[in-house]
């Protein structure tokens, strides 16, 4: 096969300021303005336009800390609108799939593509075509970095972000040392804060220095992961594309409350709702959970009130995806970790030890017909709950402990309220 002889060519496609770009799609008035998007509950800044970055607004900062700059510079502020971002993300990924390449969807706004089948000399042109197509079809601008390994494609992407064309290929560059020299070691993919400290101590400050360290030094002084990073910087692929969606190991549903929650009853309703969402999610993927964790905490920013945070895990006797059982377990946990007199700001549930539902066996359950009958009944109950909710909107059918009024729902003061995937929230355009 000729493809074996060809150089490995990995592209990292990264959407530029993705959430901001989504907000701009149907609101061109903010095309050139500084824009930020806030996290759940309008807590922190999680996406910034280039104009906002230029003002010195930092990623991840609490909104209130940047409020002065925001007001002074008339920065446009949006609450996160995840259903819109999710729909546009799916559109971007589907567009990328049209190029008939292997693809790993790495996050909501990033994907690795294997472009090895394209000739080396055309690779920059191919990148440009991918970028233009995504922009034309979905309206989302991207940056594309192409190199021999995933780690290098991240670095190429870094460079592409600063270029007008938005595409950078390192494939045909003989000596990439001058490029790697300009990349701080903590900007290298897979190098976290701890590793940065360690490398700095050993005189490694940039990607070039790590690349040119001897193999034996790296093997001796650090772990397998970092020796993979060094190999990848040399252009030897060590990290494969994960194209098959590996089944998840856990499922977390957690949210910050729109207002502080003090009463057990309200907290219980919130947690029960998270359980319903989580169990619906694992049912849709035909999984069952072995254990459940519930956690609660108060706001770390409220100085006048005491801080409290707690979590507890229990195992299910039989792995389950049954909403009723899951809610029951969660409420029992909550009773043990709830403390009166605190203003809770966040709660969540985590289902862990997920495995395939049909492999669910138990010494006792399989032997008793009665139990099987009950299981089947519950399964079909869960199925009809899911399909009803799918048809008539989430929470049409629910468990009573989930409550009816949701006082604790998310705070989304500045939401654009547009959803390209929801018939009742479609964008409006003037004629």
């Amino acid at each position, binding site marked *: 096969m000729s493809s074996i002889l060809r150089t490995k060519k990995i592209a990292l496609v990264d959407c530029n300021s993705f959430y901001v770009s989504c907000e701009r799609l*149907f609101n*061109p*008035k903010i*095309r050139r303005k500084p824009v930020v998007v806030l996290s759940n509950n309008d807590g922190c800044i999680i996406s910034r336009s280039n104009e906002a970055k230029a003002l010195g607004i930092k990623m991840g900062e609490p909104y209130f800390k940047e409020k002065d700059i925001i007001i002074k510079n008339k920065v446009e502020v949006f609450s996160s609108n995840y259903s819109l971002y999710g729909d546009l993300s*799916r*559109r*971007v990924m*589907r*567009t990328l799939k049209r190029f008939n390449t292997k693809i790993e969807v790495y996050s909501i706004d990033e994907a690795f593509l294997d472009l090895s089948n394209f000739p080396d000399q055309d690779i920059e042109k191919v990148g440009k075509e991918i970028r233009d197509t995504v922009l*034309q*079809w*979905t*309206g989302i601008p991207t940056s594309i970095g192409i190199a021999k390994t995933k780690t290098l494609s991240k670095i190429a992407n870094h460079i592409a972000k600063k270029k007008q064309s938005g595409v950078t290929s390192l494939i045909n560059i003989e000596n990439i040392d001058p490029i790697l020299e300009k990349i701080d070691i903590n900007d290298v993919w897979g190098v976290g804060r701890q590793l940065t400290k360690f490398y700095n101590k050993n005189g490694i400050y940039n990607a070039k220095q790590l690349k040119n360290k001897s193999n034996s030094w790296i093997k001796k002084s650090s772990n397998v992961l970092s020796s993979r990073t060094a190999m990848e910087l040399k252009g030897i692929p060590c990290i494969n594309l994960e194209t098959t969606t590996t089944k998840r190991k856990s499922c977390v549903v957690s949210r910050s409350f729109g207002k502080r929650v003090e009463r057990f009853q309200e907290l219980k309703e919130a947690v029960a709702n998270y359980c319903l969402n989580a169990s619906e999610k694992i049912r849709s993927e035909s999984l069952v959970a072995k254990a459940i964790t519930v956690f609660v905490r108060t706001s770390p920013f409220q100085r006048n009130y005491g801080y409290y945070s707690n979590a507890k895990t229990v195992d299910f006797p039989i792995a389950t995806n049954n909403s009723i059982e899951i809610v029951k377990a969660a409420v029992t946990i909550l009773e043990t970790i709830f403390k009166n007199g605190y203003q809770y700001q966040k709660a969540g549930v985590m289902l862990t030890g997920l495995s395939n539902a049909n492999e669910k066996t138990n010494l006792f359950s399989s032997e008793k017909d009665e139990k099987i009958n009950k299981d089947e009944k519950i399964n079909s109950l869960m199925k009809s709950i899911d399909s009803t909710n799918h048809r008539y909107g989430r929470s049409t059918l629910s468990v009573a402990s989930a409550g009816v009024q949701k006082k604790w729902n998310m705070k989304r003061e500045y939401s654009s309220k547009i959803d*390209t995937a929801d*018939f009742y929230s*479609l*964008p*409006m*355009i*003037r*004629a």
Partner: protein
Amino acid sequence: MKLTIPYYLHKAGAGFPSPATDYIEEDIDLNIHLIKNVPATFIIRVQGKSMVDVGINDGDLLVVDKSLKPKNFSTVIANVHDELVVKSLVQERDKKFLTSGSKDFIDKILINEEEDIFIWGVVTYVIHSTY
């Protein structure tokens, strides 16, 4: 958007009706027929009356495909001074203009990328409720 309509196998025409008329073969999936390029197609709702003479009314739904090249007289979504609007595209020699489709609105805007006037997407279908 997911919208399906039962599709009858039997064709209307001369002769006796088929005894299998009540046999439903499969559903028509309007998504397949109205949306050719899924990731590039958006459904939007119209607000206003400047396009009534080309059959687009206030509140109608438009199927907009961003991947298509507009033709002369295409209905388009355009960015005009950083507002998205529904317009007709008219080509005169080497120049392209945007116009409204109503006697009450007379306008003719020259497409000029540098002045922030450009095409955003092409309208492929209008969905209008008549009941």
